[in-house]
């Protein structure tokens, strides 16, 4: 895919979030090779869900980070959202001390390790719900934040009014929404084993394991210790830069067609495709349908089609 990087300063930027699922190492390597030639501006790398997933070790991440950087991407290393074991803290510390790449802190432990020493990104699993909280984190080195997925467009506008202009805001614009984390692994539970005996069974579900209601409504997706929405949140309508909107749209990787999703978002932000047309074309890349209720201050599962209330 040919890429042209033109007038990148004033328009909305695109980021690729961390892979939330467990994929085999070869698939991950292939995936990031494909990403090198896509028009995403920022790539977040790292395991954010479960420390038992080890397709990629520290050095593998660093090597992919270097390749993506050479390909012109801004690279950020993301940390685990739920920390329980001391070994997990040790790994987060190692990431924080990498000395080259910016860190996306997904838990306050990472913030504690970074605070006052180096600039960092506040990930979507940090509880930043009001400008005073954001201001405190900015004073400790935060330069960009990803809004918690349950907050709305009008909440973001409320932040933008009080936020220093240099602080970038990013929203979760494409993908199954991360909704919860637990000590328990639900993929292992579905296989009737405990987490300690999981045998990395989540590798069989490259987009998560569907949980439906007894009326066969696709409801949630199980992804190890994480629970996600079954529907894909789509905020392609926010591709046009505005004073109160997000600066960066995050696309969450899926096992197939991520490069096509990126391409459609890119066409929408470049103005070569109307957002409504992009949304229409994007729908076929969603496994079971779209939602965007959170963005309009409604139930997250609601589908407003990019046209919710005020």
């Amino acid at each position: 895919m040919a890429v042209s990087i033109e007038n990148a300063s004033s328009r909305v930027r695109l980021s690729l979030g961390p892979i939330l699922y467990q994929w085999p190492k070869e698939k991950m390597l292939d995936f990031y090779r494909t990403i090198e030639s896509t028009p995403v501006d920022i790539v977040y790398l790292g395991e954010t869900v479960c420390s038992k997933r080890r397709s990629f070790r520290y050095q593998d991440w660093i090597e992919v980070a270097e390749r993506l950087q050479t390909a012109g991407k801004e690279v950020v290393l993301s940390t685990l959202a739920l920390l329980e074991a001391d070994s997990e803290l040790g790994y987060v510390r190692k990431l924080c001390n990498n000395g080259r790449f910016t860190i996306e802190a997904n838990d306050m432990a990472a913030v504690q390790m970074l605070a006052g020493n180096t600039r960092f990104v506040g990930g979507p699993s940090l509880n930043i719900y009001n400008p005073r909280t954001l201001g405190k984190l900015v004073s400790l080195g935060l330069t960009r934040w990803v809004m918690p997925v349950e907050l709305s467009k009008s909440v973001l506008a409320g932040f933008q009014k009080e936020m220093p202009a240099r602080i970038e805001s990013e929203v979760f614009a494409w993908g199954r929404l991360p909704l919860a984390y637990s000590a328990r692994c639900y993929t292992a539970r579905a296989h009737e084993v405990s987490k300690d005996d999981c045998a990395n069974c989540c590798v069989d579900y490259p987009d998560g394991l569907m949980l439906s209601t007894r009326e066969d409504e696709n409801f949630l997706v199980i992804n190890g210790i994480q629970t996600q929405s079954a529907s894909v949140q789509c905020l392609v309508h926010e591709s046009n830069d505005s004073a109160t909107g997000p600066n960066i749209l995050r696309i969450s990787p899926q096992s197939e067609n991520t490069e096509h999703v990126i391409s459609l978002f890119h066409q929408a932000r470049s103005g070569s495709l109307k957002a409504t047309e992009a949304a229409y074309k994007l729908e076929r890349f969603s496994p079971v349908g779209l939602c965007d209720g959170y963005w309009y201050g409604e139930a997250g599962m609601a589908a407003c089609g990019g046209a919710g209330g005020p």
Partner: protein
Amino acid sequence: MELVCPAGNLPSLKAAVDNGADAVYIGFKDETNARHFAGLNFNNKQIEQGLDYARTRGTKVYIAINTYPQPGSSAKWETAVDQAAEYGVDALIVADIGVMDYAAEKWPELRLHLSVQGSATSHEAIRFYAEQFGVQRAVAPRVLSVKQVASLVEHSPIPIEVFGFGSLCVMVEGRCYLSSYVTGQGPNTFGACSPASFVRWSETDSKLETRLNGVLIDRVNKDENAGYPTICKGRFKVNGKTSYAIEEPTSLNTLPILPDLLRIGVAAIKIEGRQRSPAYVATATKVLRAAIDSCIRDPEKFLPEHAWLSQLTSLSEGVQTTLGAYQREWQ
């Protein structure tokens, strides 16, 4: 080891005090706390009466201000902090960084506890709150095994409080959006999980169905007990099989591991349930008081009495209890 008990109203507060609570935790009648339910919590007059009742009997009172203000609404949380401080409560239970920043700046002498809704699961996260805001105690989310709690207690700069009994959140607290995904209202944004206004019970010929904002959470035979439709305790289909895919209706009960919690140096044990009745508070407090006293007298020989266990089980969701994440096999 301090026993911290819930009170959603004045009769519950009295029940907790009378049955041996070392501390009682309460909330204001609004969305500044995580039990924002209709008819629950304290107005100013009730707080004054409660404080008077507890203080006369040597029991501490904590106020939970443990939800997350959004742009434009911080004043309500700040007023709550000011009121609690003016009452001279023994501690505030807080979750939001902005609220803590305000409290630490305006009321530097006011004792702060990190709420479970603050979602701090490691000593590094807790160190952040201790260093930045002078937080003096942290409540650990229900995601750690006993061994991990022991490590947390050992490395944390401040004392640790854990949950001892009550309804079980199986997701890490403070970062669960299941309720808001289905209803638009959740613990962080509204102060309640699965708000009652979205709950519907309906009958078919032979079944009873429970729904949350239209989503079928469970369906039981008419002679069975239908639980409250909390999403994580519903029955769903995964890989073609219908089951409690996340967790069964059950409550946490730590009596079997009380000597472990004592030995590893846990500072306080909390009972969940500000939304429950005064009778629940009385029984749970009485049992935990007796168990803790017995355990402190002779931890080596401690065994939970059968009567205690059956009383706690009768108070439990689904009339069954679990050790939850404290036990690795549960995970």
